[in-house]
């Protein structure tokens, strides 16, 4: 257990999935995590280009009708075990698009979201705190 879980939580490769219906501010804040000020590569977290390499999917933006099919397919292509993280108000609870006619599906109606990071956009510190909590939760799950 411990070796597997330790390896999985110490080397998280992140695939960044923008569902299209967002203002891209969350995406910019995510990229902040890689800058010298925060530098999450210290903990083995890197951004990858291909979904096949991913351990975590960061979903940003509100899910519109066109994106539903694609998001589903991307999740199915990810190699398991894989966690889903919803970043920002739109991805967590649809934000200002809650009553929109073209965005009827919240992200968590489609994907098994493991972690919600609210905020518009969330600060990088909030994202780091969220990931710390997620790792603690995964490790707690492993102990049972």
């Amino acid at each position: 257990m411990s070796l597997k879980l330790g390896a999985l939580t110490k080397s998280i490769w992140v695939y960044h999935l923008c569902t299209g219906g967002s203002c891209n501010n969350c995406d910019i804040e995510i990229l902040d995590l890689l800058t010298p000020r925060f530098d999450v590569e210290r903990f083995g977290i890197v951004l990858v280009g291909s979904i096949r390499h991913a351990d975590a999917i960061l979903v940003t933006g509100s899910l519109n009708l066109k994106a539903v099919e694609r998001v589903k397919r991307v999740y199915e292509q990810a190699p398991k075990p894989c966690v889903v993280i919803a970043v920002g108000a739109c991805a967590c609870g649809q934000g200002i698009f809650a009553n929109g006619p073209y965005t009827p599906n919240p992200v968590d109606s489609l994907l098994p979201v493991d972690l919600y990071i609210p905020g518009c956009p969330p600060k990088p510190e909030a994202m780091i705190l969220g990931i710390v909590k997620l790792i603690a939760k995964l490790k707690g799950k492993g102990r049972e």
Partner: protein
Amino acid sequence: MLKNLFNFLVFPGFLFTATLGLVASWIDRKVTARVQWRVGPPWYQPFIDMVKLSIKEITIPKNSSKIMFLISPLLGLSAVILASTFIWLANIELGATGFTGDIIVVLYLLTLPAIALILGASSTGNPLASVGVSREIKLILAYELPFIIILCVPIIKSSGLLRLQDLIQYQTVNGAILSNLSGLLAFLVAIFCMQAKLGLVPFDAGEAETEIMAGTYIEYSGILLAILKLTKFMMMVALPLFLITVFWAGFSIWKYVVLLVIIVLIRNTNPRVRIDQAVRFFWGKMTALALIAVFLAILGK
């Protein structure tokens, strides 16, 4: 027989070179981070990455040619193990090893990982992978020409020695080939060819993360991706070692570190070039330099 197996699998073949390669990849990441004013990952990060990749799920794409998809990473890995075993043995073995012409065999073996990557990526049926494959093929055509030409320089200087161990002995007696003008020019060309062979920036058009999403690696996951990455890291040991053997009078740790730092600094101070620029660079300037080096070597400079 048992000794050969030990040489191939443990020392100085697979286990030893793989460990060194993972450490080299950590040095690469750490120096990159320091250049960018970051802290960078801890030293055990590449090992954790390998363990993690080996417990992830493998997905075989529906449209792929399955046997090719599964076999080609192993093909590349075995080629690089064999090449590094040859080169290490020439450097550290006290008795006679190798055979006449093993420099040519090693040259072929060092090309095989790229070919295996091309075979594997083109068997996936992914359009982005095929873009990566087409770039990788052009890159191979580009860098192999000057690389083969400059390998004539040490052979001409040593009046026709084709064995790695003989070359090292020649250099310990007569001074490194690098100390001549022709050798220096050839070594300069060799460094750029090495950068392209390793698929690092500025010649990483085949796996450009930002435009074709890891290109040739795109469909690989799990342990197959781990093998591909390991092959790349082992090439990071085998290629500098080959250059040191041929041009720089045999291995020592500081020579390797110098070459590794040069690789990392080139990688961090250059943007990615387009594939046509890369081909023009290698077939133009580099081939011209390589030919000049060969003529100087013939003249005895």
